[in-house]
């Protein structure tokens, strides 16, 4: 019994105690990025995408957009000092966004005014992170 207790104590010393964050934490940063745009009339969807990624690996999301709307996509991560980006391409693979930014801690965003209705590709990337895998969440809004 004494041996087990010592072993547990030793393990606690070696393995740093980590708070297990979830995608929800990443989402809260995405929604924080969205908040100024809500005041500009953007409706934020309840559904969102999320996951975790190693540095320099990308994720692609196919999403239906409608000509006549304007969209913002907001990417969030809860990892300190991580740099994340999101970009939007049309179905031909052309960069289609009107603007994007990634200069705020924990978040990045891209805006598009689609020239045509159809499928678009959202490319999410972890540019830099201290974690092996970095959690991310992507929300969007339209007006």
């Amino acid at each position: 019994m004494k041996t087990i207790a010592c072993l547990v104590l030793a393990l606690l010393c070696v393995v740093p105690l980590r708070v297990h964050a979830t995608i929800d934490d990443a989402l809260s940063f995405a929604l924080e990025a969205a908040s100024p745009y809500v005041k500009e009339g953007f409706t934020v969807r309840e559904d969102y995408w999320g996951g975790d990624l190693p540095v320099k690996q990308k994720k692609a999301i196919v999403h239906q957009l409608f000509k006549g709307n304007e969209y913002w996509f907001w990417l969030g991560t809860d990892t300190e000092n991580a740099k994340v980006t999101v970009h939007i391409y049309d179905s031909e693979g052309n960069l289609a966004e009107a603007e994007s930014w990634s200069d705020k801690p924990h978040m990045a965003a891209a805006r598009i005014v689609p020239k045509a209705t159809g499928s678009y590709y959202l490319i999410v990337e972890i540019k830099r992170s201290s974690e092996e895998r970095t959690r991310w969440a992507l929300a969007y809004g339209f007006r």
Partner: protein
Amino acid sequence: MRLFSLYQKFRAATGLVLAVTLGAAPLVANEEAPPRKIDIATLPATMVDDVVVPVPTEVFGVLDKLGSPNWHAVLRKVENPNLGDRAQVALLLGSVIAEGFIAVEAQDPEEVKEIGRHVLTLAKAIGVSKAVISRTSSIIEAADQRNWTKIRVEFDGASHDVKQAMIELKDEQLAQLVSLGGWLRGTEALTTVVQKNYSKDGAELLHQPALLDHFQRQLDNMDSRLKRNRVVKQVRSRLPEIRPLIEKPDAVTSERVDKIHAITTELVKVIGSKDS
């Protein structure tokens, strides 16, 4: 605004010719510029399977910008919902929520409240009422205040919450049926509006091949019990007929809109029918 000040400084420094060229290029703040072209066939990224299905408002809002649709004529009075099996209730729940978005467009507070109550009844029938009680209360409250923006958010939230609750109950396929039911009623409403006043821009909104592929994939992957379900079976057999009609954005003719309308109307009827 750092973004704009950076851009303005850059324009001033690079002269008119370069500024005009960059005028068409996207503004990228504080990062290395993304590639201007990627090869979609060999994407430099793994695909995310999750598809977020647009809410009807995303489409209806565009229709509002194109003209002034008579949403009252599109709105269908929701009768006491027929409580069939769980698959049918899930499809019906999606289509009733879509009806809620139409009621908002029609700015009909009484119908919005009625639909809010039906959403709760259906959610109860499928065992996920806890997830939507506060949403439906908010819908009814916001309808009294005619707060249409709030009602839209709450209907979207209700749809999200019931699907999440179903996923937590290991009923992911039922959650998929909620989305499909909503898409079918939303598309039926869209075709009704486009039929009344055909325009290429309006018809182009039906160009949704990736969404159709997504629904078809989900139906094909459902367990055999669900595939044998009479309502699911009919939806699964008719859905592929829509795909070729919306393949190209500039080829959604008036005749094609009529065909899509006929298919979606029939399927929405099947979803709500007692005999099915």
